[in-house]
């Protein structure tokens, strides 16, 4: 009797983990169809790009194994190296400005005020708008003679700018469009962060007679640091990848003054049809993105420790 009960008990105890394990394996079937899609559309291109990058590969023409010749050529390709510098210049500005503005906006929208919901929705509209459509409007606004922006500058007494039509102003101008587009994403991430902050430290600071500025500097910023780093990483990656607006507004011009890595890559692949060479660009570009992301992640770990 006793032993039978204990036997049943062990059987039951043994059965549960085995059933659990079975479940775990069964859950694979939820992932498999999607996994197949991901392999076909995402992982296959990654692998195939590596394969192509060691070939001389002309569209419609032949292909031949060239080893690392494409990479060797890239290192000496001045146009490519300059495109890296331009990308870094564009990225630095397109990260810093949205971070500052996004933080200010998040602090503003964290406060309660009339029509806050509407104002916040209007503020995030740029990031949801179709980039090509918006880029067209910007292009019209940048027109040196007829554009509304130069008229606005004139009203406040600033000399007109050539905007995207001169080599030295084209990148800052494109940064302006990028900032307009993506500051809302930074704002949203930081707004989520602000909503999750505890109230206690602020009450303690108030009792101790801290000014709002002190509270911001010594409480809000440190607590918000993880969210700032997330926003920083996402913004950096997106700025490196920026393509649509640059392509629509300038196509890399005037000359090659706004040719970033992505534009260079596009031209190599789909204007000159150097598919092997373009694949090598993809690999190097990807390495640059990963490297920067790693540096930022490392910063995040440092921030967490501190």
């Amino acid at each position, binding site marked *: 009797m006793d032993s039978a009960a204990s036997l049943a008990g062990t059987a039951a105890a043994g059965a549960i983990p085995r059933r659990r394990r079975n479940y775990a394996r069964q859950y694979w079937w939820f*992932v498999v169809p999607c996994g197949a899609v991901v392999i076909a559309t*995402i*992982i296959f291109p990654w692998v195939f790009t590596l394969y192509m990058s060691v070939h001389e590969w002309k569209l419609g023409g032949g292909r031949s194994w060239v080893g690392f010749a494409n990479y060797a050529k890239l290192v000496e390709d001045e146009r490519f190296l300059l495109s890296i510098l331009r990308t870094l210049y564009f990225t630095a500005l397109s990260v810093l400005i949205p971070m500052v503005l996004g933080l200010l906006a998040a602090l503003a929208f964290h406060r309660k005020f009339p029509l806050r919901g509407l104002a916040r929705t*209007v*503020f995030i*509209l740029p990031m*949801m708008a179709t980039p090509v459509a918006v880029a067209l409007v910007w292009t019209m606004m940048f027109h040196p003679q007829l554009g509304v922006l130069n008229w606005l500058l004139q009203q406040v007494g600033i000399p007109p700018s050539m905007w995207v039509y001169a080599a030295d102003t084209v990148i800052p101008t494109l940064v302006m469009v990028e900032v307009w587009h993506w500051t809302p994403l930074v704002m949203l991430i930081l707004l989520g962060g602000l909503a999750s902050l505890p109230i206690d430290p602020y009450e303690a600071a108030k009792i101790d007679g801290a000014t709002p500025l002190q509270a911001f500097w010594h409480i809000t910023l440190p607590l918000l640091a993880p969210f700032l780093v997330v926003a920083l990483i996402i913004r950096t990656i997106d700025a490196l990848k920026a393509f649509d607006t640059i392509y629509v507004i300038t196509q890399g011009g005037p000359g090659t003054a706004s040719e970033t890595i992505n534009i260079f890559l596009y031209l190599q692949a789909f204007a000159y049809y150097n598919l092997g060479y373009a694949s090598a660009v993809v690999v190097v570009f*990807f390495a640059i*993105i990963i490297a920067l992301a790693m540096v930022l992640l490392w910063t995040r770990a440092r921030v967490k420790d501190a």
Partner: protein
Amino acid sequence: MRKLRRIAGNIGFGFGVLMLVSPAILVFLWMLSLSLKTELDNTDYPPVFIPNPPVADNFLAVFERNDFLTYAINSVIVSFSATGLAILFGVPAGYGIAKMKATKAAVVILIARITPGLSYLIPLFLLFQWIGLTGTLAPIVVTHLVITVPIVVWIMMGFFEGLPAELEEAALVDGATIWQAFRHVAMPLARPGITVATILAFIFSWNNFIFAMVLAGRETRTLPVAVNNMLTFEQISWGPLSAAALLVTAPVLLLTLLAQRQIVAGLTAGGVKGG
């Protein structure tokens, strides 16, 4: 005195908020203004701000020329298919990953988010040529999955992880299969998450430019590609150009206004973005 300072502070704050939202408002209003004015007013200097009287000619011109309707239908087909397929594949996958705590699968999704959209295009472009699919909408739908699937998987993964497991466990104890537990217990609970994922996947697929630009032929262009082509061919006719741009982006702007709460929730959680 203190009251006065508070009022001044509030006015300053209001002014600050106005400064924050005005760039967005100004660009969209200018788009609207350009699309409602005659060509004469559009090229006038100093600029005419308020259309007087507003004219619909530009919108009519867009529909008359350029097969705009064909491109609109293409865009609808592509975005709906890419979103629907992503939900079909991505929701169960998000569930499976959450249940198995398969963080390695999540890393793939993250790297997909990091990779530039262009880098998928070269291999896929060749692939479609070999299979002989060029000239149809199929390649465009497939490439849009590169955007929509990671968005859906990422959002659903987070959502299912946040659901309490007790209800499904109760269903399993009562003899339901895991598929039934998913279909009848977890899925209904996850409906808000599915809504968010659908909206975001749709918007980023609708907005996508680069995939269709490379893969589309004359007949298979999506709206962003068609509008960009208008720019290259009709440099100075600003009215029809703005009208077309407005028509392209109006659906997503309306969707944003209607579903702003879901969109904010989804974007805050994931920091997702397509392309």
